[in-house]
């Protein structure tokens, strides 16, 4: 996904002279192409995220479109106050991109895990929260985020994530999509971890279960029409899937949505990371496995329903 980001931001900077890319000292050769076309609009802001965020707010108030790029914990919780005041309160059109979200940097330990970012930024007004699942969705959402006059936060993966969408899907900010039709049980997920749901659904077909899979795409704005449509399909269960803590993420969002609308018929099961730090480290697949949020974990969860 990060290569898709680098390619698209380069293209957007050529098309829109207000785009400014701010990096928190990462992506060594990643932005070479960007720098070759828009060198005067690239700044390595160093390992100084608080300044980077406020700097971006000031630039946005002067008509520019700053795009901030660094590893997710450092562009979210590290500088939360700067996001809350500089970006959100001012409604400054800054695009905050967190790379290596969730457990993409699993081996690097809790310092590099981002399992609270959605929960925390959901509590802050004004910011769109975008959770693309593959490079096509990332590209579409990035284009829209740059064209909007309000701030956005986008959490993306790292590299090698599989493609999930095709031309039949309607991608964009606030747009959910069905990846696989099903009955009785619908897995609604965000981010590249959705591949685990698709694999699980395929496997469960052999057991005679027809599991639906949907991508939510964005946490804010939430695709209200899509959720209403899913309600009308009378699933027994929604299983929410996210590479994020179960506190305050997609699962919480959908439970709150149902509660606010007084829709109590649907049962919601949250699959995500328990509210604790992870001490046994391994790569992303290993960690998904031990946390029970990989294909196998999803299958077990469904069988136990």
């Amino acid at each position, binding site marked *: 996904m990060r290569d898709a980001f680098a390619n698209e931001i380069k293209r957007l900077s050529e098309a829109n002279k207000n785009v*400014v890319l701010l990096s928190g000292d990462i992506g060594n050769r990643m932005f070479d192409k960007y720098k070759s076309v828009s060198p*005067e*609009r690239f*700044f390595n*802001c*160093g390992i*100084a995220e*608080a*300044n980077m965020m*406020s*700097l*971006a*707010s*000031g*630039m*946005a*108030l*002067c*008509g*520019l479109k*700053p795009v901030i790029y660094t590893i997710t914990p450092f562009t979210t919780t590290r500088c939360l*106050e*700067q996001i809350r*005041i*500089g970006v959100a*309160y*001012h*409604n400054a059109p800054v695009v905050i991109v967190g790379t290596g979200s969730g457990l993409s940097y699993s081996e690097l330990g809790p310092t590099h895990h981002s399992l609270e970012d959605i929960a925390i930024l959901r509590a802050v007004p004004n910011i769109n929260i975008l959770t693309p699942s593959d490079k096509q969705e990332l590209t579409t959402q990035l284009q829209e985020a740059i064209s909007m006059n309000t701030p956005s936060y986008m959490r993306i993966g790292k590299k090698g994530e599989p493609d999930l969408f095709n031309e039949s899907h309607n991608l964009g900010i606030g747009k959910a999509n069905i990846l696989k039709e099903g009955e009785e049980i619908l897995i609604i997920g965000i981010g590249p971890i959705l591949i685990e749901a698709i694999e699980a659904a395929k496997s469960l077909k052999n057991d005679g279960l027809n599991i639906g899979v949907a991508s939510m795409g964005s946490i804010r704005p939430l695709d209200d029409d899509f959720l209403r449509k899913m309600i009308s399909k009378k699933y027994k269960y929604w299983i929410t899937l996210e590479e994020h803590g179960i506190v305050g993420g997609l699962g919480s969002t959908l439970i709150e949505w149902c509660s606010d609308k007084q829709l109590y018929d649907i049962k919601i099961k949250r699959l995500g990371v328990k509210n604790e730090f992870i001490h046994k480290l391994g790569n992303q697949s290993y960690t998904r496995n031990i946390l029970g949020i990989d294909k196998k974990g999803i299958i077990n969860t469904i069988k136990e329903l």
Partner: protein
Amino acid sequence: MSIETKKYNNLISISTELRKRIIKTSYEAKIPHIGSCLSCIELLVFLYWKELNIDPSNSEAINRDRFILSKGHGAPALFQVLGLKGFFPIERLNSFGKPGSVFHEHPPKPGYIPGIEAATGSLGHGFPMAVGMSLAKRINNLQYRTYSILSDGECNEGSIWEAAMFAGAQKLDDLTIFIDFNKWQATGRSKEVLALDPLKEKWQSFGWDVYEIDGHKFNQIDKSIELAKTNKNKPSAIIAHTIKGKGVSFMEDNNNWHYKTPNEEEFKKAFEELKN
């Protein structure tokens, strides 16, 4: 009459008028931070009456100079400055401190009070935003200068030094900041709370040209700004030695006036002093 008095007589009168207004508002609406407001009056007056290229009737002009009061708790002073300069009808300040008013203890985000460029009050935010505005000037190829006033206590914040290093690296020579060095922060002497000294050398070592002045003397403010404008390849920091609570004998260098608001007797006494 000294040269200072002759040349800057008008500015001195305005400063006194502002001090009266601040104290009156503080007394009537129980607005704190008097000491912090009184220490930066001359800096604000010089900027708004002599330096800043901002038309109060067109306060969003694209090439206007940018000013951010990074020490946002000085807002009661800034609001009076903007009112007196005609950014909005001065009667609007009659709502100061009243429920539902936009005039309270800190500047709100732009759009509520003409002339306010950024919401400040959470210390360490305004200055990095000013750095962003200065950088935007270069990218947008516009013609303006960016100014900011910081407090010495505010220099506790790490974000100040992140922004200082960034501005130094980017050689933002259209950026000039004042540090209202009144030697106090909310609950202690600023040099004792954290190791603030030597402040001049700190800013110099972060890549800035630094001037030290008496922040209540207009000729020194004037001269330092002129020098800052001739700087090439470096941003400028003007360390303004000031007195917290300046202008009212019993408030001067008395840190109780960080939070305290005057009672009737104190209000009358302060007003009497300022009349003379």
